[in-house]
């Protein structure tokens, strides 16, 4: 604007054209650069998928996919190599399932308390404090699981191994608890007041309103929070690496050392496995399986939110 002030336009048509050009070119360049920034997130996804598939393809060139998906022994680092991912999958399912046993009841009951019972002031203090649990780095939980929870459990029963699934499960349950409680509470608070008031007017107690009106109305959000929390537990790495062991076992016994898919990737990464070897490619095959499972669960949770959302006017 300023630079134009002292310069009378020769003709309004010529001025408009040169002015347009000088204003539009930088705009175009900026718009294009911003598009590049936005495409970085797409490129990340493309990068992840292609890297995993590329390396996993090499792996499945040498190991049959049926052996991988059907075998129950996982010994790629030993002399007699076996590639049955079920041994790792069992560890993942055991720890993730165990963590849900802790997080589901505590999370849903906390959500009901915060949404239905607590005063506004209590809720505003408690919710952020609960969410602190989700912000603590996972390596801290790993420390807590191995050095606090495991000795506690071994104090109860001598038969529990130093590395075991149960203490990893309990601590992981604490970690994902705020995910269940916060998201469920959001869903419960989205249920309109009029529904509750209708039930109270018919003589319901608070328990009846909570369990027969609020929870059914918020069910899609609650289920979505379960699935998200489970998916987070499946992808969680440090707690299970530190506390659950490095011993792939096809078992659901929570008292013996096991190994999850994520812990296996860490185990191989810590060693100096030369690139291009079969051992190196196994971590990409395992990571691809992990990626497919978590992606599927996240999509399922989004589907639940969209498909079953009760829309209130």
């Amino acid at each position, binding site marked *: 604007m300023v630079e134009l002030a002292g310069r009378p336009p020769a003709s309004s048509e010529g001025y408009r054209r040169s002015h347009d050009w000088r204003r539009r070119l930088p705009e175009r360049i900026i718009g294009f650069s911003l*598009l590049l920034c936005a495409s970085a997130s797409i490129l990340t996804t493309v990068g992840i998928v292609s890297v995993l598939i590329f390396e996993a393809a090499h792996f499945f060139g040498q190991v049959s996919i049926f052996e991988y998906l059907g075998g129950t022994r996982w010994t790629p680092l030993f002399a007699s190599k076996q590639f049955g991912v079920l041994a790792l999958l069992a560890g993942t399912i055991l720890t993730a399932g165990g963590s849900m046993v802790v997080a589901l009841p505590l999370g849903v009951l906390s959500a009901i308390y915060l949404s239905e019972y607590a005063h506004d002031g209590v809720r505003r203090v408690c919710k952020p404090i609960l969410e602190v649990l989700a912000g603590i780095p996972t390596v*801290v939980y790993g420390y807590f699981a191995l050095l606090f929870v495991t000795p506690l459990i071994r104090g109860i029963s001598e038969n529990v191994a130093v590395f075991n699934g149960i203490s990893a499960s309990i601590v992981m349950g604490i970690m994902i608890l705020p995910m269940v409680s916060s998201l469920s509470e959001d869903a419960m608070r989205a249920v309109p007041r009029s529904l509750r008031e209708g039930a109270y007017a018919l003589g319901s107690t608070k328990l009846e309103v909570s369990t027969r009106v609020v929870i059914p109305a918020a069910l899609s959000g609650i289920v979505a929070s379960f699935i998200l929390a489970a998916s987070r537990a499946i992808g969680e790495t440090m707690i299970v690496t530190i506390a659950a062991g490095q011993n792939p076992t096809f078992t659901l016994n929570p008292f013996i050392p096991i190994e999850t898919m994520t812990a296996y990737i860490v185990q191989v990464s*810590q060693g100096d496995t030369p690139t291009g070897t079969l051992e190196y490619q196994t971590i990409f095959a395992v990571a691809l399986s992990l990626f497919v499972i978590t992606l599927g669960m996240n999509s399922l949770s989004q589907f639940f939110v969209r498909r079953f959302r009760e829309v209130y006017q």
Partner: protein
Amino acid sequence: MAAIGPTEFTQGMARRKWRGRAFHGLCLLAVVMALGMLAVLLIYLVLQGWARVNWEFLTSFPSRHPEQAGIHSALLGSIYLVIIAGFVAFVLGVGAAIYLEEYAGRHWINRVIQVNISNLAGVPSIVYGLLGLEIFVRSLGLGKSLLAGGFTLGLLVLPIIIIAAEEAIKAVPSSVREGAYGLGATRWQTIWHLVLPQAFPGILTGMILASSRAIGETAPLIVVGALAFVPFTPDSPFSRFSALPIQIFNWTARPQAGFHEAAAAGIIVLLVVLLAMNAAAVILRNKFQSPPEG
């Protein structure tokens, strides 16, 4: 329908009320247990590690002797990593958010990117490590360097920054833009001089939260090749590195109790840093929450 006498009704009501109170207690117990576990965790850590937290601990290199071990190189590594990751994520994330909110409109690419971002946010962090290992460490030849680790963490926190920046830009009222356009400003002039300054506190809050996520990440750094024993200060972006969570992991995995104390002390330092960052984010949000005049 059988009529219910007054006695049955009173008994039934008493039972329902008793159940209600029990349920109330159960819900309260759940919250107390959750908060209690947080308290136990924090108290246990302080008891284990407080004695080791001092200036010497912050300025010593790791050592074979637990009582001499410190977090100097790990702390520096974490700081450098967060700077690199923050820079990458800030540039890409804010650029992407501006594009999505101000340029793309209802274009199909907007929807594709939105779906993509929400999916990326759910990818386990260790998978990002494999991406970093294959792309940054190997294909781009950065080696197991600070740059490779920082870029990996940058991509990891990218969704957080994009989402926060989008929210902040969305909150700027459209009357501001219309006024600027009405005066003949171009789209970029409007964004640069009016939209971004108003959205800045929100973007900065997202930036701090993303950094606090990056600073606590362990798994992707192990995969990218962070070292547990770094007896030197990283002197270039291509230097090998350690990070605070890596150091904590390494000490936790050792059998000696002395290293466990050092790990607890490292955790205290890490949590204090995180607490400070989150407090800054909260203060910032409260300070700028007054509605912008528009």
